[in-house]
């Protein structure tokens, strides 16, 4: 009765892998992992129908299948093309692919502002990674970039339309996770923009996930806006009992202050599955309102790829040396020549940036000199 499922044999960059029929080339490459995996800006494995828009995952199919070993004439989007038995795919071994990818990256960056010093996504931005790894130095675009009227998406989510690359991921999140979608892509071509049709705020319980899903800094967390840079905060896995979501999150902390709460991410930058096996989307309450360390049970520091800028200044497995000074000095601590916190105006204990709603303004610092 149980007929054994026939597995397809695919060769990607000379590495052969057996995958189930119906798998896309991108997912087959992700099974191999490493450099062989094409980058993806719009495809999101947890969102149905995503993919096929950004074209960064283009690969060359050198042989269609064992039955029909002719190569495909054009490069194909690997997130949308399913594998065939005996298919031979070239990704980084093909010059055509690398050249096309550099071109796509240049196209994506045409209208993307050079906002990285200001942008909160810097450091965990997929477009930054893409342009570092696959892009070319410099641009040939010498015209004015797109500008948009500013839209207010409510008190939690900040939209920067100029940074958007129109990947549609946030639209799929609203469609598939919330009951009602109030935002979408309006207009076409150069004028296409993410907006609510008549100014509405996004206030569904799960709409905060558009922030995690956004590959660039177009949708960012207003409660974290300009509070700190990503690489100065320490990611920590934590959980709490939440009636709405799985409650398994990543806290971005500095000292005991929780600056930001996000869903946990896997190695592809996508939301990880929670312990119950379902995608670990988190609700707005966990994301925006629980900014106190007492709300959470800490599971331990998150694993960060050591090539990521986020791992800067994070020392793994370091033992804090015991402070022997009070012991040898008979219980008396060392006399400090200067206590930096008495002089310094930064990180003042009375101004808790993580507690301020939205970005800090000049009046938040008025109390200090």
């Amino acid at each position, binding site marked *: 009765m149980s007929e054994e499922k026939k597995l397809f044999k695919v060769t990607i960059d000379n590495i052969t892998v057996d995958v189930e029929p119906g798998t896309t080339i991108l997912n087959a490459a992700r099974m191999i992992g490493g450099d062989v995996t094409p980058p993806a800006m719009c495809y999101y494995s947890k969102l149905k129908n995503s993919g096929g828009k950004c074209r960064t995952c283009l690969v060359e199919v050198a042989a269609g299948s064992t039955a029909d070993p002719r190569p495909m004439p054009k490069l194909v989007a690997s997130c949308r093309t399913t594998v065939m038995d005996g298919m031979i795919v070239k990704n980084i071994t093909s010059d055509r692919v690398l050249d096309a990818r550099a071109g796509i990256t240049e196209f994506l960056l045409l209208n993307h502002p050079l906002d990285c*010093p*200001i942008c909160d996504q810097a450091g965990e931005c997929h477009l930054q990674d893409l342009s570092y790894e696959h892009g070319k130095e410099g641009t040939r675009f010498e015209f004015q970039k797109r500008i948009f009227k500013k839209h207010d998406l409510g008190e939690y989510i900040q939209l920067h339309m100029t940074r958007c690359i129109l990947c549609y991921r946030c639209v799929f999140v609203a469609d598939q996770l919330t009951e009602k979608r109030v935002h979408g892509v309006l207009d076409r071509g150069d004028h296409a923009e993410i907006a609510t049709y008549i100014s509405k705020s996004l206030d569904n319980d799960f709409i905060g996930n558009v922030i995690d899903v956004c590959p660039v800094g177009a949708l960012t967390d207003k409660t974290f806006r300009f509070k700190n840079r990503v*690489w100065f905060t320490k990611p920590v896995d934590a959980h709490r009992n939440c009636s709405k979501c799985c409650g398994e999150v990543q806290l971005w902390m500095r000292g005991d202050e929780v600056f930001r709460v996000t869903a946990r991410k896997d190695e592809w930058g996508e939301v990880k599955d929670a312990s119950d096996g379902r995608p670990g989307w988190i609700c707005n309450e966990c994301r925006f309102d629980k900014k106190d360390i007492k709300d959470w049970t800490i599971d331990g520091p998150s694993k960060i790829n050591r090539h990521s800028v986020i791992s*800067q200044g994070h020392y793994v497995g370091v033992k804090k040396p015991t402070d022997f000074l009070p012991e040898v000095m008979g219980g008396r601590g060392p006399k400090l020549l200067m206590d930096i916190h008495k*002089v310094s*105006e*930064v990180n003042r204990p009375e101004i808790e940036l993580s507690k301020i709603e939205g970005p*800090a303004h000049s009046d938040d610092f008025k109390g200090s000199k």
Partner: protein
Amino acid sequence: MQTLTNRAKPVDRRPMTVLEKLYLPAIAKGMGITLKHFFKKKVTIQYPEEKRPFSPVFRGLHILNRDEEGRERCTACGLCAVACPAEAITMEAAERMEGEENLYREEKYAAKYEINMLRCIFCGLCEEACPKDAIYLSETFAPANFKREGFIYGKNDLLIPDPKKEPEQYQKALGSRVKKS
């Protein structure tokens, strides 16, 4: 005893001759050397009145730059703080409010910016890391101070004078290395 190198000289332990015991020739010889230096070119300079020229690559006290309209260039991106090997730089960012456009160049700015000059090693990596041309190492030293507290430099100490309001002080702060246009 075997010597380590062949440059070692044995100490001369012979008793002094009569001429050496007189000491007078040796004194005259020493005075001669002193006298010779009176007529040589002086190596010292009278510091506050006279200053040595700085090397074109000298790295001195930091300065936070403004643009030509007098707006602060720093956007608190934190790249100088990451680049800093001594971890001397800290900052806090804020969002520009309406009506502050003449003060800050971008929508985000450094509300607090602090350099701990006790930690700073003047390596210039912050200057290299800055994407906004906001921080430069100038041609001055950090002035001496009796207390350690005086070496925590805040934004008021670091900011360059406004080119619109105080053009002379701004030109002075720019120093001689900047190309005059």
